[in-house]
């Protein structure tokens, strides 16, 4: 069971990474507008403005 010495820290680290990523995205406002975010993926912002 020596492998646990590596595996458990790795599991905790990866989980902690996920938690950190979530807290970061929460702080940077990515959860402020869930309704809008799902539509923004359809926007063609990268195309030149033809108006």
């Amino acid at each position, binding site marked *: 069971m020596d492998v646990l010495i590596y595996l458990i820290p790795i599991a905790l680290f990866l989980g902690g990474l996920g938690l950190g990523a979530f807290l970061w995205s*929460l702080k940077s406002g990515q959860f402020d507008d869930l309704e809008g975010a799902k539509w923004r993926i359809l926007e063609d912002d990268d195309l030149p403005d033809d108006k």
Partner: protein
Amino acid sequence: MTVHQRDWQAFVTPGKDGALHMDLAVDGITCAACMGEIERGLKRLPGIRNARVNLTSQRLAVDWAEDQTGADEIVAELARLGYTAHPFDPASQKERQDKTGKELLRCLAVAGFAGMNIMLLSVSVWSGNATGIAPETRDFFHWLSALIALPTVAYAGRPFFRSAFNALASGRLNMDVPIMIGVVLAVALSVIQTMQHQHHAYFESAVMLLFFLLVGRYLDHNMRGRTRSFAENIAALKAEVAARINPDGSVREVPLSKVAAGDLVLVSGGERVPVDGVVETGTSEIDQSLVTGESVLVPVRAGQRVYAGTLNGAGALQVRVEAASGATLLDEVNRLLEAASQAKSKYVRIADRAARLYAPLVHGAAGLTFLGWLIGGLEWQPALVIAISVLIITCPCALGLAVPAVQVVASGQLFRRGVLLNSGDAIERMADIDTILFDKTGTLTLAEPELCGPVDPGDRTIALAGRLALSSRHPLSMALVRATGSLTPLPEVTEVSGAGLEAEVDGEVLRLGSPHFCGATLQQIEQILNEVPGASLLAIRFGGEPVRLLPFRQSLRPDARAVVDHLKAQGYALEILSGDTQPAVADCAAALGIPDWQAAMKPAQKIARLEELQRAGRKVLMVGDGLNDAPALAGAHVSLSPVSAVHLSQAAADAVFLGNKLQPVADALRLSKKARAAIEQNLWISGLYNIIAVPIAVAGFVTPLMAAVAMSASSLAVTANALRLRWGEAGREARPVPDPAIEAKA
């Protein structure tokens, strides 16, 4: 739209690196296309650093460089794109950051992360216990779980601990007290078990319980936040600002929070009076229907008092803002309001009632279990372990979710029907109702006056009068414009302040205005008032033709009769309490088929009638919009207000409904009954779960695995039952499209 400049300093806050920041409520964002259109449109302006639309809350946040563009250009550009926008008053935006919601979400994330990791270790232990895990490995896993669980409980449990301590400090019991006791005992027991190298520890139960309960809390908070932000948008779009006349004579539009007693405020024709005060100069007619319920216009001149929420007629007024002096109508309303709110706070929510019943029962059961096993010959330590396992398995996971889960689903359904809840427990109170009191003006009727009878499209005089009316912002003129559908104003219109309009057509004089201004006789006026009681009159005289009088009245909401019939069929007792005159109320009551009505009621009389009914054991729903209804709204068992209501009434009401229809009132009653039934079912489900689980725990057979399965299963059962509320609702009428812009101009 307004001639005077807006004082942007009051709305703008400094942003990052010298830029200015402003939040606007935008009307008419309905889809993703609007979002892109607004953002791209604004970015074409010079100096815009950032423009971002929030589709969820229908708001726009803009940052721009001060020297390159101005707030005026931004609003003008939005108007050009076809969106009405109004900035938020930063003073009313204290909760914009939504700190509570973010804290709950952070706690939820931490509890979720910890729960998953502990479960990973626990599953290994459970399967290891069956297949012969080495005791050292099991202890190691338990210690690791403790390492994760202890900080998690300390962090993610804070919302519950705080509320539990607050409740205990004020000598009450709420659901958070048993939650706190359960979680803390579960963790403490597990640490001791781990130290003693036992087979079982309950770390995952404690963390999972927190996770489930936080989900419930967060959903509950989110639903409230959504209605609050929507209500704020409506308030902002109503443009609750005042045009303040500065000592140097300049007129600036400022948010209401910046107006102080003693300031001089300009009220243009057709605008709502924003403040309470005394008229300094100017004459006009005031529509007081929102304040007193009277539908007939009242003339005002210098020295007379005007109230916030009333609608100014044609003339411009300068109003000196007054602080409450103890003698005005507003003071009386405020006094009654305070007394009424105190009387109402006696109501105890179902959840708290359940908690009062639940906590002694469960804690008593745990105590008896401990004593029972002691007497039965067990050592005190194992007896205590069994007693605590009773507390853990009965920890009110399902009970904690039973009420919020239903409230979230029900308020979501109500939101789609155009009903916004101010208070979460309004749903359960609404289900008790057996009597409904209606205000007349603005509640059963619409807030705006309308021409009685049809317009003959071939009638040239009326058509001309309609075109002439385009030059005035008097409420009756605007109603005439709506009735005739006129589009082109007449040239060279002269306005006689406080009397009417005059123009020359084909060499003949056309006059539109008060009956006196057009030379109508008293006899004529009396005759038409007999035909249409309680009407406001607008007179037309064209050259040598006889004077014509047009009666205007607030028309009933389009579905009022149908809704009233439906409510009567449901067995509700209906009554009208109005501040309007006898004939007007009698007419309305007859049209709706409500035999019980009282007219010319003062706020104190309304609340007296309400108390009389409540003493007789009736549960009363009050529906009203005026300032005079506010005390009754606060005192009633539960209350509803239309969105066009005055601020004070909306704040006093438990819920606000949107749109021109009365249907939301019936919907709210129907949905709340369904929700109440679902809440009761949920309480039974969690009760049943305890009846099954407690004997097993008392017998000492409970394992952490059983606790985990039982908790998840009961929580899911309760949530699924709440979701059942949506059944059969999808096919019903969709949410009425709110139109705050129209109401703002009303």
